[in-house]
């Protein structure tokens, strides 16, 4: 009894502390639910808690009671990026354009919490029918970097922004679900609807060739750096369905499908051109091209306009099994395919004006060209006592991001190996859970490609290193 009180006290302290530190950053979470993450995400074949609404809604049908749940995830991403953004025709001749090359950079470090909650009502008399609502955050990624400053000698009067690269994506999922048993409790089917709200900030540097006539387009003013910043939000709807079949008390299998989803984001895109300052060159260009000469005064030109884009989130198809060789031991295995190939690009449709040329802008594209990725997960649960569960897991998650679009905005730099530990305590009317995950990313050194122009750069070459630490807490009350 005393032990339980201490654990509850400890838990409540964290509930109070963590929201104070709450920020919006982190990697895309590995999933939701203490139990599921403690098993390395191998949960589709077990799916026996509230997080089944995310992994496999059919599992909800085997809940024995109604319940409410509150959880939160604490993320600590630890990325490092050492830029090598150089341009050349021949390998030995590399020229810089302003990136802080060969210096290990860190984003703005933050510790983040992602809350989730759910409530489900159980109707045992209706063949285990259960319905309810869950809220969770399936996608969360935020990195703010200081990677760029105009070349020495550019002499811009107005300092280039400190945070010059930012990728910030939050997707909130309001997820009503239903599930029911069939075949005398051997089979269950479940379905859910995803009502998702997305927020996206995308900020990066675009390099535009300067308009100074030769030979006045000398280094370091051959390119204008443009601060390109989009901020927008929007909604989308999708669904997931699942099946769970209990072949025997020692074996069960689950299959789930999550539909692709398109978030229609509306917002504002702002372009700010930082101009160089060179009054002598300006005076020489003035008779030839007065407009170009005006671009040598060191100020900024800015334009802001409405912009819309569609963020196409992937479908997910997964199958998992749970094997219980002993009453206190469970082994779970999952394989799932995420169709990231749906994220080909972000195409912004807009009506604005180029701040430099005054020409009309109708669209702008940021290429992604991500690839489908298949994840493998393995989990193990041991119960030394009927109230206590110890869990461990592993997963292997390849990156969907190809080299040609790899940037630190969304830090999917390399194959991810995840190792998890978890613990759960079950009381008469409540459950507590905790899990910890360490994800190590395979180090990636992306070399610059010969022949790429600064204005057509789609990736940021350099050395990518990353790891994440994730803690997940859950409190469930059953009634």
């Amino acid at each position, binding site marked *: 009894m005393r032990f339980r009180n201490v654990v509850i006290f400890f838990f409540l302290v964290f509930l109070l502390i963590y929201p104070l530190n709450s920020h919006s950053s982190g990697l895309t979470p590995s999933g939701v639910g203490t139990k599921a993450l403690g098993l390395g995400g191998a949960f589709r074949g077990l799916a026996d808690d509230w997080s089944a609404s995310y992994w496999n809604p059919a599992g909800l049908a085997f809940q024995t009671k109604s319940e409410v749940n509150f959880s939160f995830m604490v993320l600590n991403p630890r990325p490092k990026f050492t830029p090598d953004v150089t*341009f050349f025709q021949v390998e030995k001749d590399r020229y810089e354009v302003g990136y802080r090359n060969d210096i290990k950079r860190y984003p703005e470090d933050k510790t983040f919490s992602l809350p989730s909650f759910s409530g489900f009502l159980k109707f045992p008399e209706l063949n285990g029918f259960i319905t309810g609502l869950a809220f969770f955050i399936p996608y969360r990624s935020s990195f703010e970097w200081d990677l760029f400053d105009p070349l*020495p000698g550019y002499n811009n009067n107005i300092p280039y922004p400190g945070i010059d690269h930012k990728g910030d994506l939050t997707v909130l999922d309001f997820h009503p679900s239903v599930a029911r048993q069939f075949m005398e409790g051997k089979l269950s089917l479940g379905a859910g609807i995803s009502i998702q709200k997305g927020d996206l900030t995308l900020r990066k540097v675009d390099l535009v060739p300067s308009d100074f006539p030769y030979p006045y387009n000398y*280094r370091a003013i051959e390119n204008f750096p443009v601060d390109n910043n989009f901020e927008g939000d929007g909604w989308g709807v999708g669904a997931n369905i699942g099946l769970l079949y209990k072949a025997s008390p020692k074996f069960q299998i689950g299959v789930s499908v999550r539909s692709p989803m398109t978030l229609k984001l509306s917002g504002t895109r702002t372009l700010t051109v930082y101009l160089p300052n060179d009054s002598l060159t300006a005076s020489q260009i003035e008779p030839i091209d007065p407009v170009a000469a005006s671009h040598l005064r060191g100020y900024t030109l800015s334009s802001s306009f409405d912009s819309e884009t569609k963020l196409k989130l992937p479908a997910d198809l997964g199958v998992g099994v749970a094997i219980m060789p002993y009453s206190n031991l469970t082994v779970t295995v999952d394989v799932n395919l995420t169709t990231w190939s749906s994220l080909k690009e972000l195409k912004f449709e807009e009506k604005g004006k180029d701040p430099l040329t005054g020409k009309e802008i109708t669209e702008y594209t940021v290429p992604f060209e991500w690839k489908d990725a298949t994840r493998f997960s393995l989990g193990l649960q041991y119960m030394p006592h009927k109230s206590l569960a110890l869990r461990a897991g592993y997963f292997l998650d390849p990156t969907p991001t190809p080299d040609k679009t790899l940037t630190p905005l969304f830090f999917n730099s390399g194959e991810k190996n995840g190792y998890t530990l978890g613990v759960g305590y079950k009381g008469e009317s409540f459950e507590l859970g905790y899990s910890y995950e360490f994800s190590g990313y395979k180090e990636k050194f992306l070399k610059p490609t010969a022949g790429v122009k600064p204005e057509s750069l789609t990736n940021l070459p350099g050395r990518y290193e990353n790891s994440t630490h994730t803690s997940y807490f859950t409190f469930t009350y059953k009634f």
Partner: protein
Amino acid sequence: MKRKIVLPIFLVLLFYLIFSGCARRKNPLQMTVDQGGIFEISIDTAFTLINNVLGDPFGRTLLVYLPPGYQEGVSKNYKYPVLILLHGFKENGSSYDHYYRIKTIADQMISSGEIQPMMIVMPDGSGRFGGSFFTNSVYADSSIFAGKYEDYITRELMHKTLYNFGTGIPGVNVKVNEKESIYVNITHPQIVRDTVCYQDTTRHPPCATGDSILIRYQTITRYDTITVTWIDTVTTISDSVLFQQNFGISGHGNGGYGALRIATDYPLTFGSVSVMSAPLDFDSLLNLVPAFLHRNKIDSFPERYHQIDLNNLDSLSSLFFAMAVAFSPHNPSSTNYTTFFKLTPSGKGVDLPFDSLGNTVSSIWNKWLEADLKTRILNISSSDTSLKYLKIYIDCGDPGEFGFKNQALTFYNFLPAVIKNNTTLQIYSGYPGYPALENSFIYDRLREVLKFHSDHFTAP
């Protein structure tokens, strides 16, 4: 009892797992760059340029970069090494400051320790058609035509500025921006003209063990007129080497030609020379003659040869006329006007080395070949080892506008082994949309040049 142990362990582990990796990391601070300074010096009358027949200005300004730590008016404990940086075609002494950000680059590289502190002197050698090639443009009797730019560099400029800023003599007052005065000392008011072994003056150092060396100084004794005196001085080898190794000369384009010519004319004054995108093989220039004729529509209408508008020349035509001014002033006593172009009302002018049909005129062309660096180096006697210690750096863009890349390759391949061993050749490329033209990457090449010279300067 069991719980009393398990619970603290559990909590400690939990805290560690939650907070592991939470520490806030800081990005490296921006490097603090110590600031040097660029000083503009006005030379009201350059006596090596006065009376030039083209009427080019004989008053010139030059810029001097003084490194961080340089203290005005203080006798220095050591001399800063000096790099003379000659500008490119259609540029002037301020180009390295305005276009290529020499101060920013040097400040940064000195602060980061990539190069040692040095003074950089940037004289003005601009001429009527875009460049003087920093050579003495004279008639056959050595009387002045467009200006004695090589003498201007090696006599007037070095004397008036380098030594003044470097060490100096009390009482010499150099005006800086006409506001500040720098009082300095001169301990070496001479220019080394030649250095030979004391026991055998036909040989150059290194000499036999125990031998001394004989330094032949060229001394300027007055500032308002040029009086040259030859002095033989005996000194130690180490002094000589220190003196030489702390002087470098560099240039781009027409300044690159001038730098290499001056360094090879004064091999024991300069320890290192660098050449950026310069004409190094005049034979290759003949390949550009058809383009010259075409751009001036002479290939279709040969009679237009003498009707070229000298006030509206394209860059290639300017290059040919600037070279003609430097290398082939028209002999006033000559009555052959086949390739003559009048430049002054009094009838003075230059000869091009080819006629309206593009045929080479050998009498003129030979004058150019006399100035051709490849020819000059090939003509150096094999017994003359004076260039043995000169470190040479040559680079060129690929593609270069005027075929300088092939000229650099040809020049390099023709070098005698003893010189080639001390020569570094770099051919560099740009990137798509920004090709390595004549001056498109000088901003970047300057870093290489400064590193090259710094590596060969004697560390203080």
